[in-house]
């Protein structure tokens, strides 16, 4: 097919380009905008996609900025296909930019396949329910908000909190009990700073994880609009590794808030009617086409587990981004500034955190038979402890009943011994559960209504 080139760009606004006099253009097609002598060293090339097409007019959204382009000299080509990523097992160990071009000085990837980055929706009838426990070695996650293979579990955080450290720790320590399988990490950075990206790269290098990692880096000074493609490119690579190569892939997406901002930018440039806080009404659908690409497929070996990191503006979890994310993902791990200020790492706010798939991933033959009881009891006791502490703030410690005082103390030791752990401390699930029993023993047995007698007898005595 001969590719036609047009010189009829009639307008530009932010990342949007209007072209006239076109013919035979398809919706969603990829375009190239070029400026300068064709093939020359100074030739500028930008890519974008068709957002709206009528008989002779096209609206194009660029993935890179429109800076430096002009109306009368820029040439635009319609390539007749969607945005594609060249995939191959050789991607492991490599670093790419946000559009999938190598930036580590290595050679281009020789494509085994070229895949459309938008993917297709997994048939719900083809999915397999995630139920394999992933041990992260972090008690607050393993014990309370268990991560399972194929889950999407975001970390809701705020600026200045140690989410990167936690994500790196999970990446280092995550393993499936009693199994040795092919494992890969995909890291997609959207609009984060060089230091943050560098932290991850160094951490991966130090632990050797880089060998089985693929990195897609869009830094804060890279074009914002490119961020719309970055997570999709990363997930296309993930799908290839998981479902064609049979690997278990952990995808870290950071920071989804920057992605949302880019989405808003395009929507505003298109003059669409905004929903909440200027974000487009279709943001839920758009986010779901990213998050829903996690999962397992019946009869396929691999899996995709997602840990998106999302910084909440003003630590507000009702902000549209964390809010819509929470409605799609299978739970959330929320970091608390207050805990962090008290010197607790990881500062995971236990009560509002949640793993929806926990029930299916724990228990006998998966973790331990007492796991469900212990978790439920820890939640209830910690909640009561926190409530009592609030009461004590108003009425004074002296006004508390003796039992309430025990709960107040329990909340403290729970935070300091169970939640808190070192950045390089890798606790097995048995250790986490035994520790939990040790802490629960400080409370009177009749107050522990959520643990069954048989479990208490068996594990309470154990140190």
């Amino acid at each position, binding site marked *: 097919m001969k590719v036609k080139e047009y010189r009829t760009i009639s307008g530009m606004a932010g990342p949007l380009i209007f072209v006239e006099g076109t013919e*035979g*253009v*398809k*919706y*969603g*097609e990829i375009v190239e905008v070029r400026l300068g002598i064709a093939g020359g060293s100074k030739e500028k090339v930008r890519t974008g996609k068709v957002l*709206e*097409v*009528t*008989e002779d007019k096209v609206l194009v959204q660029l993935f890179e900025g429109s800076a430096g382009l002009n109306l009368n000299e820029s040439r635009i080509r319609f390539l007749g296909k*969607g945005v594609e990523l060249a995939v191959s097992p050789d991607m492991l160990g490599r670093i790419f930019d946000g559009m999938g071009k190598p930036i580590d000085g290595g050679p281009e990837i020789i494509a085994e396949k070229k895949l459309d980055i*938008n993917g*297709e*929706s*997994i*048939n*719900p*009838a*083809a*999915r*397999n*329910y995630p139920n394999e426990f992933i041990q992260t070695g972090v008690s607050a996650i393993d014990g309370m908000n268990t991560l399972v293979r*194929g889950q999407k579990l975001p970390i809701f955080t705020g600026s200045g909190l140690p989410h990167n450290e936690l994500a790196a720790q999970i990446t280092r320590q995550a393993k499936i009990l009693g199994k040795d399988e092919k494992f890969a990490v995909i890291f997609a950075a959207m609009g984060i700073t060089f230091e943050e990206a560098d932290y991850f790269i160094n951490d991966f290098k130090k632990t050797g994880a880089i060998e089985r990692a693929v990195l897609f880096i869009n830094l804060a000074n890279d074009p914002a609009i490119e961020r719309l493609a970055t997570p999709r490119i990363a997930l296309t690579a993930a799908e290839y590794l998981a479902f064609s190569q049979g690997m278990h892939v952990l995808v870290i997406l950071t920071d989804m808030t920057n992605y949302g901002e880019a989405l808003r930018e395009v929507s505003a440039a298109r003059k669409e*009617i905004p*929903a*909440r806080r200027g974000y487009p*009404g*279709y943001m*839920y*659908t758009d986010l*779901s*086409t990213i998050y*829903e690409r996690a*999962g397992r497929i*019946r009869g396929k070996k691999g899996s995709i587990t997602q840990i998106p990191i999302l910084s909440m503006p003003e630590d507000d979890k*009702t902000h549209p981004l964390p*809010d*819509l994310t*929470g*409605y*799609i993902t*299978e*739970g*959330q791990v929320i970091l608390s500034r207050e805990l962090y200020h008290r010197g607790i790492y990881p500062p995971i706010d236990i*009560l509002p955190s949640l793993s*929806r*798939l926990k029930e*299916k991933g724990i228990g006998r033959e998966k973790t331990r038979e007492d796991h*469900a009881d212990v978790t*439920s009891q820890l*939640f*209830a006791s910690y*909640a*009561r402890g926190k409530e009592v502490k609030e*009461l004590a703030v*108003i*009425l004074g410690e002296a*006004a508390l009943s003796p039992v309430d005082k025990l709960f107040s103390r329990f909340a403290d030791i729970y935070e300091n011994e169970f939640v808190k752990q070192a950045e390089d401390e890798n606790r097995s699930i048995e250790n986490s559960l035994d520790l939990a029993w040790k802490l629960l023993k400080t409370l009177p047995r*009749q107050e522990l*209504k959520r643990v069954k007698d048989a479990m208490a007898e068996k594990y309470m005595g154990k140190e």
Partner: protein
Amino acid sequence: MKIKGKIMKVSGPLVVATDLPGVKMYEVVRVGEEGLIGEVVELKGDHVSIQVYEETTGIGPGEIVVATGQPLSVELGPGLVTSIYDGIQRPLEIIKQKVGDYITRGIDLPKINREKKWKFVPQAKKGEKVNAGDVLGEVKETELVMHKIMVPPGVEGTIKNIFEGEFTVEDTIAELSVEGEKQIKKLCMLQHWPVRQARPYRKKLTLEEPLITGTRVIDTFFPIAKGGTACIPGPFGSGKTVVLHQLAKWSDADIIVYVGCGERGNEMTDVLLEFPALKDPLTGESLIKRTILIANTSNMPVAAREASIYTGITLAEYFRDMGYRVALMADSTSRWAEALREMSGRLEEMPGEEGYPAYLASRIASFYERAGKVTCLGSDQRIASLSIVGAVSPPGGDLADPVVQNTLRIVKVFWGLEDRLAYMRHFPAINWLRSYSLYVDNISEYMEKEVAPDFIKMRDEALKILQKVANLEEIVRLVGLEALSSGDRLILEMGKTIKEDFLHQHAFDEVDTYTSLKKQYRMLKIIMKLYYFVQELLDKIPFEQLMELKVREEISKMKFIKEKELNRFEEIEKELEKEIKMKKESLEKESVLSE
């Protein structure tokens, strides 16, 4: 002859076409070379706006659009139950077998299996005169569902022939001679119905019976009637989906239609994998055998999400027309409203609140109004019901959201989920102060007759205690527990017992997941009995001593008593009486001694 037009504009799921003279609103059209399924949503001069139910990437101006002359319809007949469909009734299990793990577009498969043969047993006889809704015969679709083949609405005549035997859905099973028509009308099991049009019935009736769900906070405190409507709004993580799953599992309905509208793919998988293994408490058969699933997950095309709600309700109405008690769960209606909003935005309509179209309220109202208890068409005057439970996912859990507010104006039951309860892992996290049910009066007669004469009275008393607790907690927060009288402290303590030992229910515990009405009554009764006994002794015995009753431990475990062992409650009751008696006796002794 089919009308063919061409595409002028493509913008996401919205396609504008021209040269389609005579095309009707809500008519189905096939778009582009691949024949994507779309529906006409706006006519303006010769411009036709079409919402396309599949991904439109790669479609461009100039391609053809073919009008089908038909509105968006569902196929009805044996083979629906146990199926999983997408929003426009495409069979997902078959798509998986045909094209693999991902949903590719342009797939056109029969919605109901054409090859499978069903054993048709006639009920009507040759020579009989039949009207719309009359039952021609039956097909045993699953162990739980006897599928009734009815004369479709708008048809009547005299049966010339009716056949018994094994037939596919397209084979003729009966022949009617219609008055004034020469040609004989052939009827097969397969029927069609447009989704946006409610199926007809004879008459709507007053609701009297509860839909028994096995969830205590619902059945006892905020019941929904069979044929009623309920909504369950809550922020993420508050357990909407678990409540809906529980309802789908244990409700005493004959047919369950579960619509996953713009929600998580894994949740539908959960239902698909879990339901076959679960047993219906009444019949002992697998729960999937009475269930139809509609799955249009969040990453599937947005226009089909808008249609999924209608597809679901039409299937539900079809089974209602057979005389069954049907319950439909929709998770979540907010996603449906968002799909409306997205299409409305692309049509450049004037937005109402929060960008939602101005017709949001009327769409929600007309959807919920399709629920009800009715006398069906057909000469046997069978009575059936269709109940609707819709989840709502307001942004930030804010109940001022237009979807919540418009839903509350129409539904009669409100189960308000609260994240504070969810954080304490108190499930179901239904707030007992904010929630309400307007069906209590409707069903009180049934409850008093079928369960116990004092059921409603006790429920009211218990609710009163919970109300008082809320007020007292305020006071405690200000002045401390010591300032309360022992009567108030008893109320606080009883509130705690009701919350922990009655309202709190484990969805994942084998026994606790379902509680029959009888058991609910006995549980609440023991708690209330304890309350009355202790109240009597309050001014004679110190409060702390009264709270040390050993039977309280038994009470805290009564939710785990199996349905088959309900006589255990009598033992607990006896023990309670014994302990109270002992307290009384020792009191008398003391008073004798002190004299």
